[in-house]
């Protein structure tokens, strides 16, 4: 669909050929494409596993044979094709949005979804500055990870099922970011949770994997209860769930800093802590690493887990109106960042390190949006999507190589344990270089991650002027940065440097991944290096493009909360501090790890002292299990079921006491001899008499 040029943007964009732009009302395509991919791949997954029951057997058999032969190719083309197409559409929508004469949100109403009296919710998608940015990240990074998966999952028997789930995930993720109301967003919100569940438990025959999937879904649902209660409160207050109406009318309807707005935002944040793995609901994310590694990269690092940050940014004005809530959001964020980083210090599973690192980085994002620096939070969300996807895919290449090598020599060693790696740089030069780029970015060297993290910390420092607790947040943030640099350097050193611990027989089989896997890594590497440019600060020669682009979204929030960036000397001191922390962490992490003798996992001694506590993740899982899960199951089984239902209700009221039992037995026997009618008659008459007496003559 072509557009007429209008507005002041026209001149600047005249150079863009018109066939390159799309009107926002084509946004449904971005959801429809992956959804179609899901249906096709899903059909193939089912067809491949057995006969098609709805067709005559002969035809069904021929189809099955054909599908088996070409399935792999079809799945690859469809699975990745729809994503690339959705990415292209997203780009064209992005360009098209510049051509609109107004830059306000465009809402595409598809159909009326749940209309009941005053309650009206449309199935509608919203295109605005924030959703466009998310759209590009999800389809862009998503495409790269789909491509990587072609290589990574090539030999898996569930190839079609894998791509079906992955496509479905993208469709739900886009509904999440494009939904124009809380409720449509909630479809995506729970939908991505479902896909996460299915993909974590993808190799479901291992009980640990399906346990992990279930845990993820359940913990997320605890958060969803918060999301739902927040929706009830919002609707009761303003009678709508549409973002545009709510964000316009709620500020006028409730007092700033009042109990209601604080409650609404806290319940929303409870939802966010579930999806984005923050304290106290972070426990599902480390277990989620049971899924295939590209899934960890896509869902559990780059996209889904950032949904909570997106939610807070989307409803930024509400959080800005509730200073208590925003302070708690920032606090929970930074404490989670620190807590998770400390656990990452002593993990040996390469994916677990990255998982805790993700929780930690998400904490930074919450520190950002809680501080009121919404653009900075989104900025970190984007750069994190680049470098964390790169780290996970890099780890995927490593695991791929390790797995193959161990497979060749029929070894059952752990392919993910860094104690079994070491010296991989010789076999995997590309991966080594690319992962170092990502590691430097996350550690806080002046690549993309540095700018976004630095901005969050600077804003937090700035807000300390009004609320001194933010100075503490800043300090915790810097300490976390130090730890981040340390555990990343440790990860790199253990994996790629030092002596090989893979085992002499397996070592020759280590190799670089095929180009279909390394290619996306290279692209992500470029994005990791240059991604910071989208919001380059003034001192580095930029002009905060992302921040001004998101201004239509964040402007209302800034009326209530506007943290200032420090200027002049303070600014440079803060930058210097951040860089120092990063450098110290990197050097210390690398030197200490390389200098140490690392024993392969098989022979590794038991952890001791505080290291043991860290290795066991502060025993939080065990604590939850002992305090919540087990008591609840025991309570349900012993008290509610065997106690209340069986002993009290059935026992006392139905047939427990000897008299009633006998009575029941008698009725039972009469019943079979056809005397029941008599009892029923007696019963009716008796009841009639009693009720008559009660009523007392009416």
């Amino acid at each position, binding site marked *: 669909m072509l557009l007429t040029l209008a507005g002041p943007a026209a001149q600047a964009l005249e150079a863009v050929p018109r066939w390159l732009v799309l009107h926002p009302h084509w946004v449904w395509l971005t959801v429809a494409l992956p959804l179609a991919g899901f249906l096709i791949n899903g059909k193939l997954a*089912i067809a491949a*596993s*057995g*006969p098609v*029951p*709805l067709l005559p057997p002969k035809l069904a058999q021929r189809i099955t044979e054909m599908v088996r032969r070409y399935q792999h190719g079809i799945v690859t083309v469809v699975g990745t094709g729809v994503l690339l197409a959705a990415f292209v559409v997203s780009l064209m929508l992005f360009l098209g949005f510049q051509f609109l004469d107004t830059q306000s949100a465009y809402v595409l109403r598809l*159909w*009326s*979804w*749940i*209309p*009941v*009296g*005053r*309650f009206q919710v449309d199935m509608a998608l919203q295109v605005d500055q924030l959703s466009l940015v998310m759209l590009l990240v999800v389809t862009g990074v998503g495409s790269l990870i789909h491509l990587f998966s072609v290589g990574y999952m090539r030999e898996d028997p569930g190839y079609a099922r894998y791509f079906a789930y992955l496509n479905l995930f993208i469709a739900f993720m886009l509904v999440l970011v494009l939904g124009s109301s809380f*409720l449509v967003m*909630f*479809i995506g919100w729970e*939908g991505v949770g*479902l896909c996460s569940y299915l993909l974590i*438990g993808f190799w479901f*025959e*291992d*009980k640990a994997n*399906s346990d992990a999937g279930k845990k993820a*879904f*359940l913990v997320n*649902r605890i958060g*969803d*209860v918060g999301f*739902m*209660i927040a929706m*009830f409160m919002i*609707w*009761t207050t303003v009678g709508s769930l549409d973002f545009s109406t709510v964000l316009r009318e709620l500020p006028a309807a409730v007092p700033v800093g009042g109990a209601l707005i604080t409650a609404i935002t806290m319940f929303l944040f409870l939802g966010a802590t579930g999806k984005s793995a923050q304290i106290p609901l972070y426990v599902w994310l480390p277990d989620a690493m049971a899924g295939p590694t590209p899934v960890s990269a896509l869902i559990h690092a780059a996209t889904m887990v950032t949904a909570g940050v997106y939610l807070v940014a989307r409803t930024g004005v509400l959080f800005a109106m509730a200073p208590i809530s925003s302070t708690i959001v920032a606090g929970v964020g930074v404490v989670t960042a620190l807590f998770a980083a400390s656990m990452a210090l002593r993990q040996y599973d390469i994916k677990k390190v990255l998982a805790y690192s993700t929780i930690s980085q998400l904490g930074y994002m919450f520190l950002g949006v809680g501080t009121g620096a919404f653009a900075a939070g989104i900025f970190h969300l984007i750069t994190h999507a680049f470098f964390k996807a790169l780290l996970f895919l890099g780890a995927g290449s490593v695991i791929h190589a390790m797995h193959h090598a161990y497979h060749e020599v029929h070894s059952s060693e752990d392919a993910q344990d860094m104690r079994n790696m070491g010296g991989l740089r010789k076999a995997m030069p590309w991966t080594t270089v690319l992962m170092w780029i990502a590691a430097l970015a996350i550690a806080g060297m002046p690549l993309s991650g540095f700018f976004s993290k630095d901005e969050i910390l600077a804003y937090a420092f700035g807000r300390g002027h009004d609320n001194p607790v933010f100075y503490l947040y800043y300090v915790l943030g810097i300490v976390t940065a130090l730890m981040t640099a340390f555990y990343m350097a440790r990860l790199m050193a253990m994996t790629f440097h030092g002596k090989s611990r893979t085992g002499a027989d397996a070592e020759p089989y280590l190799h670089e991944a095929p180009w279909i896997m390394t290619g996306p890594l290279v692209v992500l590497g470029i994005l990791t290096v240059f991604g910071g440019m989208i919001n380059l600060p003034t001192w580095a020669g930029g002009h905060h493009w992302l921040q001004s682009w998101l201004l239509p979204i964040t402007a209302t929030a800034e009326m209530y909360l506007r943290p200032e960036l420090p200027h002049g000397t303070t600014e440079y001191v803060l930058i210097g501090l951040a860089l120092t922390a990063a450098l110290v962490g990197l050097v210390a992490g690398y030197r200490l790890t390389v200098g140490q003798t690392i024993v392969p996992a098989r022979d590794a001694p038991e952890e001791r002292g505080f290291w043991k506590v860290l290795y066991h993740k502060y025993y939080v899982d065990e604590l939850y299990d002992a305090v919540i899960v087990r008591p*609840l*199951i025991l*309570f*349900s*089984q012993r008290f*509610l*079921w065997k106690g*209340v*239902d069986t002993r009290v*209700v*059935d026992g006392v009221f*139905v*047939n427990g006491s000897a008299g009633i039992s006998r009575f*029941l037995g008698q009725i*039972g026997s009469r019943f079979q001899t056809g005397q029941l009618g008599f009892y029923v008659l007696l*019963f*009716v008459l008796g*009841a*009639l008499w009693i*009720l*008559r007496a*009660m*009523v*007392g003559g*009416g």
Partner: protein
Amino acid sequence: MTDFLSSLGYAQWIIPVLLLVPVAGILPILLAPAAQAKRIALVVSTVVFVVSLGLWWAFDATSGNFQFAATLPWMPFWGIYYRVGIDGISLFMVLLSTAMMPLAVLGSWHYITKAERGYYALLLAMTSGMVGVFVALDLFLFYFFWELILIPMYFIIGVWGGPNRLYATIKFFLYTMFGSLLMLVAILLMVWQTAHTTGIVSFDYAFLLEHAGELGSAAPWYFAAFALAFAIKVPMVPFHTWLPDAHTEAPTAGSVLLAAVLLKMGTYGFLRFAVPLFPDVAMSPPVTALFISLAVIGIIHGALVAMVQPDVKRLVAYSSVSHMGFAMLGIWAATVQSVQGALMVMIGHGLATGALFFLVGMLYERRHSRMFADFGGLARVIPLFSLMLTITALASIGLPGLSGFVGEFLVLLGSFENHPWATGIATTGVVFAAAYMLWAVQRIIYNPLVQPENKALAGHDLNLREVLVVLPLIFGMIWLGLYPKPVLRRMEAAATRFVEFSIPRAVTVQTADGSETEGAK
């Protein structure tokens, strides 16, 4: 379509046809060879379903009144008439009943091997009874159909049920009989008392509704009798323990009909009779508090006990207790959103739980077990079954975009304003629902495939007949989840009417000592 139907005079004959055709179908079943019984039952129930579909178009969504109404004398001397009609509340209950029946027949195809004629005859009798309950507008007629259903269900469980069927049937019979006989007594006394004051003996619903405000101090007792009968049927905690036993012992189709239709007779009874007839009692603060508490307790209790069941069918039965708690909460919150939500919960639960029982039955036919301990890893050997189980389970736990969500969400949304704490607690039910259902799914289709009996299932995935049983239900779940508007639109007027009725009326009531007092406004 509407014009075509009115040219056929559809509105005049549809209800008699729905009541009589199933019963008429019994005769050929009894005459034909036993092997043909299921075919005849399938044809008859399919015809009834197809004919009933016309209601969808012939129903006027803008009207909150009873449509397709008719009155014929039955026992006019006693004021008993054949009075029927359909409004937005009963419309979907009727459609749910007629839709489930062909599926129930198809689902029993190979499961029922003894006394087939009797079995299918009873199923058809039940069809008439179910439709009758939902269309009757005469309290005697209603009671007649209400009891009529009990008998086929009793035999279906008692004759074709599992090993522990005798205990289950007696429990089922005593529980429901206990409640419904009290209801009969209340009906009779109410009519008698109204006749006393007005001089007219009538079981007419509209007439009694008009004069229900004059019952005075007896109203709470009448309400209690009605409420007990309906609460047992729903079932509400603490009257729910008959359900797990009845469900577990019933043959597949029995469980399906029990869950999909029979339980709804309870909530329907509240919506049609107990609340509108006695709003001053039902909506008084203590009674509201009692029912909302029981509803919320039911939601949580049902879900928690479901979680620890070792038997798949018992789990689904307890999940029904939990789901019906949502419906009760919606009814007692009495806002347009919550009441329509309650109706959507009833429909959604009918689809999802019906499908769950079908699927469990299909599994039972293959493995002759319903114990979680006997399953595991089935997704590897019977993927189509696993897919359908997953979709159904997700619809059941209220995943947005599937049928369960719309009802649950509307109930909670509509209840929150007046009952925030109860709603808050009820909302946590979604976590427990996910807990029991996902754990159940995991223990059936995921985890290692170790047992040889399970490995032997390879190649024995759902066949065409089974797919045809479950697929329509799955289609319904997706449709109602994504585009419930046509359904919501048709029930809105009736739900609004219910909400208006449930506001206690300003009437002059006679107290027991004869003095006049002003009732609650």
